[in-house]
C-alpha cells in the first residue's frame, strides 16, 4: 500500500470507533423513529405497521401543535436573550480578571456538579409560599402575606436561564480570551473611549462566541422537558412535553415520533443556518 493511500485511510481508521457509535446510537435509533412516524396507533393493543401519512398530516396541519411549537421557540428565544444579557458581563469579567480566573471558571462549572433536576427544584424552596424569599419579605415586613411566585411561565424561563447560563458564559469567555487586548489599547490610543472601544472592537470580535452560546442555549432550551413540569403551571408546556405525553401518557408512539422529528427538523434547520453563516468551529471551541 502506498504512503498516500495509507494516509488517506488513517483518519477513517481513527474515526471508525466514533462513527460506529454515532451510527449505532444515533442514526439507527433515528431511523427507527422515522419508520415509527409512518405507523398508526390502534386504540388498544399493538400499533399498525405500514406507510401512513396520518401522523404527519396531523402534526403539520393542527393548530395546537403549531401554537405549542411557536410558544416553545418564543420561550427559548427569551431565555437565550436573558442568558446573553446576564452572561456577557460575567464572561467579560472573567476574561479580563487577573489572578483569580481559574477560581472563577471553577465557580462557573460548579452547578454542573449538581443534578439539573435538583437545581430546578431548588427554586421551589426559594420562591415557594413558605420559601426563602417570601420568608425574608415577611420577616422584613415588606409583605403581609406570601406572594405567589411559582408555577408560571416566568419561573419556567427563570429555571431555564439558571440551567443554560453557564453554556453562554463559557462560549463568550472563550471568544473574549481569543481577542488581542492590544486592539483595545490601539483603539484607546486613537482617541476612542473605553465604551467606544468595547462597542466597536471587543463586541464585534466576540460576536461568534455570543452566537455559539446563543445557539446552544436556544437548542437546549427549546428541547427541554423537565423545567415546565417542575416549575410550570397547568397550561405551561413546551414541545418536548407534547412528545412525552404522546409517547408515555397516550401510548401513541407513532404520533410522538412524528412530533419529535418535527422538533428535530426545526432545531436542525437552525443549526444549519448557523453553520452556513458562522461555521461550527466556534461552537466546538466553546464546548471544548
Amino acid at each position, binding site marked *: 500500500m502506498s504512503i498516500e493511500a495509507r494516509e488517506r485511510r488513517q483518519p477513517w481508521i481513527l474515526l471508525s470507533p466514533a462513527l460506529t457509535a454515532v451510527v449505532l446510537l444515533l442514526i439507527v435509533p433515528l431511523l427507527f423513529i422515522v419508520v415509527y412516524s409512518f405507523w398508526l396507533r390502534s386504540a388498544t393493543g*399493538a400499533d399498525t405497521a405500514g406507510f401512513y401519512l396520518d401522523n404527519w398530516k396531523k402534526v403539520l396541519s393542527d393548530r395546537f401543535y403549531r401554537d405549542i411549537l411557536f410558544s416553545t421557540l418564543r420561550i427559548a428565544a427569551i431565555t437565550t436573550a436573558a442568558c446573553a444579557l446576564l452572561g456577557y458581563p460575567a464572561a467579560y469579567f472573567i476574561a479580563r480578571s487577573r489572578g483569580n480566573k481559574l477560581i472563577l471558571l471553577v465557580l462557573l462549572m460548579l452547578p454542573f456538579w449538581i443534578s439539573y433536576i435538583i437545581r430546578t427544584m431548588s427554586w421551589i424552596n426559594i420562591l415557594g409560599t413558605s420559601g426563602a424569599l417570601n420568608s425574608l419579605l415577611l420577616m422584613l415586613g415588606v409583605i403581609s402575606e406570601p406572594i405567589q411566585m411559582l*408555577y408560571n411561565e416566568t419561573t419556567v424561563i427563570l429555571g431555564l436561564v439558571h440551567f443554560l447560563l453557564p453554556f453562554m458564559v463559557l462560549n463568550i469567555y472563550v471568544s473574549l480570551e481569543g481577542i488581542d487586548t492590544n486592539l483595545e489599547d490601539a483603539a484607546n490610543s486613537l482617541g476612542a473611549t473605553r465604551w467606544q472601544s468595547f462597542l466597536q472592537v471587543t463586541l464585534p470580535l466576540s460576536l461568534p462566541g455570543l452566537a455559539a452560546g446563543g445557539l446552544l442555549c436556544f437548542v437546549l432550551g427549546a428541547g427541554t422537558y423537565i423545567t415546565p413540569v417542575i416549575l410550570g403551571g397547568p397550561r405551561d408546556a413546551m414541545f418536548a412535553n407534547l412528545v412525552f405525553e404522546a409517547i408515555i401518557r397516550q401510548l*401513541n408512539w407513532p404520533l410522538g415520533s412524528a412530533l419529535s422529528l418535527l422538533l428535530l427538523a426545526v432545531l436542525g434547520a437552525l443549526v444549519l443556518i448557523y453553520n452556513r453563516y458562522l461555521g461550527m468551529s466556534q461552537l466546538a471551541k466553546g464546548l471544548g
Partner: protein
Amino acid sequence: MDNTTRYERLRDRYRNGDISRRKFFGLIGAAGAAYGLQTPFAKYAMAQDVKQVRFDGWGGVVSEAFRKHAFDPFTAKTGITVVDGTFPGGDEYLAQVRASQPGEYNIAHLSGVFDYARYHNFDLTSELNLDNIPNMANVMPALINAFHAVTPDSLSAAPYDYGSTGLAYNRKYISDDEAKEKGAMLLIDDAYKGKIGGWSDWRTRVWYGALQTGQDPNDIQDIEAVWDAVRKHRDLALKYWASGAELMSLLAEEEIYVTEAWSGRVYALQEQGHDIGYYDPPKGFGWQECLFVIKGSPMEACEELLNFMLDKETSIAVAEGQNYPPALDPTKVDLGKKIPTLPAFDPTGTLAGLTFANPEYWNGHEADWSETFSRVQRGY
C-alpha cells in the same frame, strides 16, 4: 418454568434411565451454548435467574413499606433478591414495559382493573398457578372477580390493596362541613382560585369533571360539559401535580388548599401532623391495586413472592406502612386496629361503597380523551 427446574427435570429423566448419558450431556451442552449466545443480547436470561425478581411500584412511603415489611423479609427467607424500581404513573410504566425485553420487568404494583385490561390487550398477561399462592384464599372475592372479567380462565395478578382518590383540603382554610357540602364542586370554586391543585392524569380530571357536571363517571352522556369543567378547574388551579411526593409537598407547604388526592397519602400527611381533611364525594374515584406478574417473568419465584406478600402478617404490615387497606377479606381475617381507621376501608369486604372505573368503558375512550385532555390542559 425457570432454568433450574428445567435442569432438575432433565437430570431426573437421566437418572431414571429415560434418556441416555450421551443425550443428557448433549442437551446440557446445547443449553449452555444457547445461553452463552443469547445472554449478551437479551436481558431475559437475567430475569430467569431466580436469585432475583424485579418489582416496580409507586415510590415514596409505599415503596418504603414494601421494602421494609415484604421484600427484605422475603429475601431473608428465600434468598431471592427483590430489586425494586419506581414509576410516577401507570402510563409511564406501561411505555417502559412495552419497550423492554420479555422478562426484564417482572412484577408491578398496578392500579385499577383498566390497567389490568390494558396489559392484557398488549399481550403482557401471564398465567398464575394459584396452587402456589394458597394465601389468595383470604383475598376479597370482589377484587378477584374484577380481574376474571378480563381474563375469565386465569389470573395474571393478585389483588393487594385498595383506596380512593377523594378530596384533600387544608382545614385551616376549608372546614369539613364546607367540603361535604360542596363535594367535587370545591375543585372549581372561584373562592380558592390559585390555591387549587389536581393530578395531571386525564382519567382523574375527566372523572371529577363528570362529578362536577352531575354525571355518572362510568356513563358520561355530555363529554363537552365535562371538558368545560376541566377547563374551569385548569383556570383556577395553581399546579397539576405529577407524583405522590409532589402532592404531599404542595399540601404541606400550603401552596394549595384543596386538590383531589390519594387517600393513603393524605393519611400519611395527617400522621405527620398536618391538618389536612379528606372526603370521598359521592361516586368518588375508587381503585384497587394489584401485584401484576408480567409475561416472560420467572413464574415460580414470582408466585412465591406473591404468596409471601399476601400472608396475613406481611399484608397487614405493608398496609399499615403504606396507609392503604389490604385486599384481605375483613370478614375472614382480623386486620388489627389501624387498618379500620384508614380512609376508604370497607369492613363488609364487598367494596360496594366504592365506585370503580369500568375498564371497558374507560379503555375504550383512552385514545380520544387522553389526547383531548392534553389540548384542554394547554388552553384549548
